[in-house]
């Protein structure tokens, strides 16, 4: 199985070149944020700005309501994750442990729900929210994002609970726990990594949304999410690419950090539903 030196060099070169090409757009976003507007209009392009304009980050943070946008995105994400996780944990546990009648058709339905185009669901949701006065409110996003999240989290969690031996709760019940107590005191603590991974995955789903935010919140600037805010920065005639890039870095960082530190768990969640 030992590789020769030439094979090793080829492998490292291959991996290096492939990674460099695929990651280049992300590097370019950083470089754009760090360039002056003059450098951005120069040909040939500047591949390493000198000196790097770090103050662009401070400038956009001061001039644009980025903190507000990020706060709104966070509220929508946390709200929809809490709502979805609450119902999904209970439902996932039920589907994993009890042979409820209709459990299978529930599964089929959830499968269909994953296929729902957001552009289809956004129409009736808009009508419904308008009748109850939720248009423009962050609650509209919390509810709409839950429609994206619940189908995923329910099955990720069912899959996770399936991997936990049934003997655990049986032992707890022999020791006098009620079935509900066995779930809350024994199974949920043991499932903490799975719950965390699922919540983070749900957080990413909500954070990435643009369709619902654009439809429900366009006219209420105070509730704009980060993604919606960014798109308003692309002017019709002039776009300050260094500023829009700097804002983009702010918006991308939370998800990239989650990814870099928790890739193993996220990937576990991503593949759990499909690997069987």
């Amino acid at each position, binding site marked *: 199985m030992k590789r020769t030196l030439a094979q090793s060099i080829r492998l490292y070169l291959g*991996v290096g070149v*492939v990674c460099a090409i695929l990651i280049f757009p992300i590097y370019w976003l950083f470089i754009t944020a760090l360039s002056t507007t003059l450098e951005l209009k120069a040909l040939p392009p500047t591949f390493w700005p000198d000196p790097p304009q770090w103050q662009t980050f401070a400038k956009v943070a001061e001039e644009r309501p980025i903190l507000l946008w990020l706060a709104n995105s966070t509220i929508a994400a946390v709200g929809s994750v809490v709502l979805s996780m609450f119902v999904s944990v209970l439902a996932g546990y039920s589907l994993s442990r009890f042979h409820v009648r209709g459990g299978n058709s529930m599964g089929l339905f959830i499968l269909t729900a994953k296929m729902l185009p957001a552009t*289809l*669901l956004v*129409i009736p949701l808009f009508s419904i929210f308008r009748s109850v006065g939720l248009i423009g409110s962050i609650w509209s996003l919390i509810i709409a994002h839950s429609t994206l999240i619940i189908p995923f989290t329910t099955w990720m969690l069912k899959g996770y609970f399936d991997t936990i031996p049934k003997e655990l709760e049986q032992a707890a019940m022999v020791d006098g726990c009620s079935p509900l107590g066995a779930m809350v005191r024994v199974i949920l603590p043991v499932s903490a990594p799975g719950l965390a991974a699922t919540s983070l995955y749900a957080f990413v789903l909500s954070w990435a949304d*643009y369709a619902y935010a654009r439809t429900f919140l366009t006219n209420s600037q105070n509730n704009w999410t980060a993604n919606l805010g960014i798109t308003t920065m692309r002017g019709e005639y002039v776009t300050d690419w260094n500023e*829009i890039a700097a804002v983009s870095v702010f918006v991308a960082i939370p998800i990239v950090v989650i990814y870099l530190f928790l890739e193993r768990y996220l990937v576990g969640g991503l593949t759990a539903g499909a690997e069987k």
Partner: protein
Amino acid sequence: MTSRFALDLARPSRRHWLGYILLAPAVILVALIIVYPLVVSLDLSFQKVGIARLDQPRKEFTLVNYKRLFSSAEFWYACWVTLKLVTVVTAVCFLIGLGTALLVNHKFKGKTVARLLVALPWAIPEVIAVVIFAWIFDSSFGLMNWILVTSGLSEKMISWFSQPVPAFSVVSVVLIWKGYPFVSIMTLAGLQSIPEDFYSAAKVDGANALQRLRYITLPVLMPVLGVTTVLVVLWVFRDFSIIKVLTDGGPVGATTTLSIMTYEQAFGFFNFGYASAVGMVTLVFCVLASLLMLGHRAKAMY
């Protein structure tokens, strides 16, 4: 009262009740926020209605939306655009995804970092990906035009977003860049589940690298790849944010997929009835496409 209730559930004959009780919140919520809106949408698609208000009486039943839909050139063109986009993006996503997965599946120092980097675009929000590529493909100062002109591949600067074919290409590039990491992640997970012994045994029998790929790797990966294909196809089918922010479906409808058409009809022209009809047909296509691709293995998806 509470303790009697709990006691009851502990009895083996009553235990399955707990299953229903735990399932209830999810069922109620899903009924309220997914099923009910779907029914409303189906209902709207059979009415000639602009901006629908639920507190107003419903309009009369009519098939006019569906008739208009199937006789409209715009709809069939959107189907064609969707089909082209799904095919191109899925094919290239698989090429890059499989390639990168096989590459970083080797054992070498730094493979953990390489695996992280290879799938990093997955973590970039779609809107940000659009910002990046809109700038790279900027017609006056974009990097891509500079590369093409300097290398002699193109004689003049291309104005990417005002011509159909270039605009379609840029949309494809962004979708591919956002989509291939998923294929890569899924393939890598599949590859890790193949025992090393399989390869050792094949080597003993004298199989070369290509034969090992053909007779061991691909067959084991097949089920995972099947599910992954469906998920990628559905993702392209449903994409809204990338196309909307990048080209808004233009120029002259060259990047208007069924998803974009649905949204445009609803919130551009305020034809909620007609838009619902387009959306319903899109949903039917999605369900049919995944059934066709998975067949009896549809159950493996959940």
